[in-house]
C-alpha cells in the first residue's frame, strides 16, 4: 500500500488506457456488425423484390392461360402471394432493426463497462492517495523536528 504511492498517475492511466482500448475494439466490432446486418438486410430485400416480381408475373400469367384472368380465384391467389411477400419483407426489416437495436445496446453496454472501469480506477486512485497520505503520516515519528 505504501509502496505504490510513487506510481499513482501511472497506475490510473494504465487502467484507463486498457479499458479504453477494450471499449474501442468492441465499438469497432459492433459497428462492423451493424454494417454487415444492414448490408445483409438490403440484399435480402432486393432478392425478395426481384423474385417476388418474377413470381407474381408468372402467377398472373398462369391464371390467364387457364381463362381465369379476372376471376375471384386469381384475385385471391395474387392477394395471398402479395401478402406473403409483404410478411417476408417485414420479417427481414424487423430482423435488421432488431440487430441494429442489439448492436446499439452492445455499444451502450461497452460504454457503461468502460465508464465503470474508469470510475473504479478513479476510486482506486483516491484510495491510493489516501494510503499514501496516511503512510507518510506513519513516518512522522521518525522524521524528528
Amino acid at each position, binding site marked *: 500500500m505504501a509502496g505504490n504511492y510513487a506510481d499513482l498517475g501511472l497506475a490510473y492511466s494504465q487502467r484507463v488506457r486498457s479499458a479504453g482500448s477494450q471499449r474501442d475494439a468492441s465499438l469497432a466490432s459492433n459497428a462492423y456488425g451493424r454494417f454487415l446486418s444492414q448490408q445483409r*438486410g438490403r440484399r435480402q*430485400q432486393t432478392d425478395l423484390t426481384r423474385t417476388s416480381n418474377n413470381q*407474381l408475373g408468372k402467377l398472373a400469367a398462369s391464371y390467364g392461360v387457364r381463362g381465369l384472368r379476372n376471376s375471384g380465384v386469381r*384475385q385471391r391467389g*395474387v*392477394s395471398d*402471394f*402479395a*401478402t406473403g*411477400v*409483404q*410478411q417476408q*419483407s*417485414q420479417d427481414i*426489416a*424487423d430482423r*435488421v*432493426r*432488431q440487430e*441494429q*437495436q442489439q448492436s*446499439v*445496446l452492445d*455499444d*451502450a*453496454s461497452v*460504454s*457503461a463497462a468502460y*465508464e*465503470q472501469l*474508469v*470510475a*473504479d480506477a*478513479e*476510486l482506486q*486512485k*483516491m*484510495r491510493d*492517495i*489516501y494510503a499514501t*497520505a*496516511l503512510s*507518510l*503520516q*506513519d513516518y*512522522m*515519528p521518525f522524521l*524528528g*523536528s
Partner: protein
Amino acid sequence: MLKPWEIDRRTGTSYKKKTGTTNRDTQSAALSRFKDQVGLEAPGIPTDAAGMTNWLQSIDNTYAKQKAAANNAQTTPPSSGGDATQDALAALLSQPAAPAPEPAPYVDPYADARAEAQRAAEARRQFLQQWASGARMTMNQASDNAAAMLAAQVNPYEQIQMIAPSIAPSVYETYLQQAGVSPEQVQALISVSAAEQAANDQAYQNMLDVLAGSTNVARDSRISDVELARALGGLDVDNRLMASMLGVDEGEAAALAKFAELTRQDQLAADDRAYNRGQDSRQERLDRVNSIVSAIGDQLDPTTILEMYAQAGV
C-alpha cells in the same frame, strides 16, 4: 599562676618546673607556639623578637590592669590606642556578629535545556498539525475529484434513441394495393405489424430502463463510497495525529521530569556546598578564638571570652 606560655600544652605542666628556665625563656617558647597557632597575620601581633617582647610586656600590663579592675569589681573599657593586645581584642570585639553566609542566588544549569525541550516539543506539535492538515487537504482534494468525476459520468443506456422502422408502412400499402389486396386486409396487416413493432419497442425500452437504473445505482453507490472514504480517512488522520501528539507529550514530560530531577540533585549539591562553606568559616573563626584563648585566655575576663565565642558563632 602560670601564664599560658609557661605551660606545656602537651603535658599541661610548667616549662619552669621541667626546664628551670627563666620566665622570659618560657615566654619566648610560648610566643613561638602562639605565632604558630594564631598566625602572624593576626592584627597587632609583632613579627620580630623585640616587638614581640614589647607586645608580651603589654599583655602583662593588660593582665595586671584587668586583674586590678576585677579586684575592684570595676570594668575597664578596652583602650583604643597604645596597647597592641588591647587593640587586637578591640578589633576582634568590634567586629559584628558573624552573619550566616548569605547563599548565592541559585542558577539552574538545566533551565536552557528545559526550555529547549519545550520549544522542540511545541515545534513538533506544530509540525504534526501541519502535516495532518496537509494530509486532510490531499484526501479532500482526491475525494472531490472522484466525486466530481462520478457525478459527471454519462449513463450510456439513457442516451439510446429508438431506431425507426426501416420500411415505412406506406411502402407495403402501395405494394399490396397494386397487387389487388383489399384495403381492409391491407390495414389489418399494417396494424398487426405496428403492434408487433410497438411490443418489441416496449420490451427494448424496459430493458434499457433496467440497465440505466442499475448503472445509476452503481454510480450513486460509488459516490457514497467516496464520502464514506472521506469521513473515515479524516478520522484516520485524526487518530494518527492524536497518537503522535501523545507521543510528543510523553516525550516532553519525560524530558522535563529528567531535567527536574537533575535540577533537584544540583540544588542539593549547592546546598551542601553552602553548608560546608558556612561550617568552614565558623570553624575558622572558632579556631582563631581558641588560639587566642589558649594563649592569653587567663588574662581576659570571662565576659570578654564569652563575647569572643559568641562572635565566633559558638
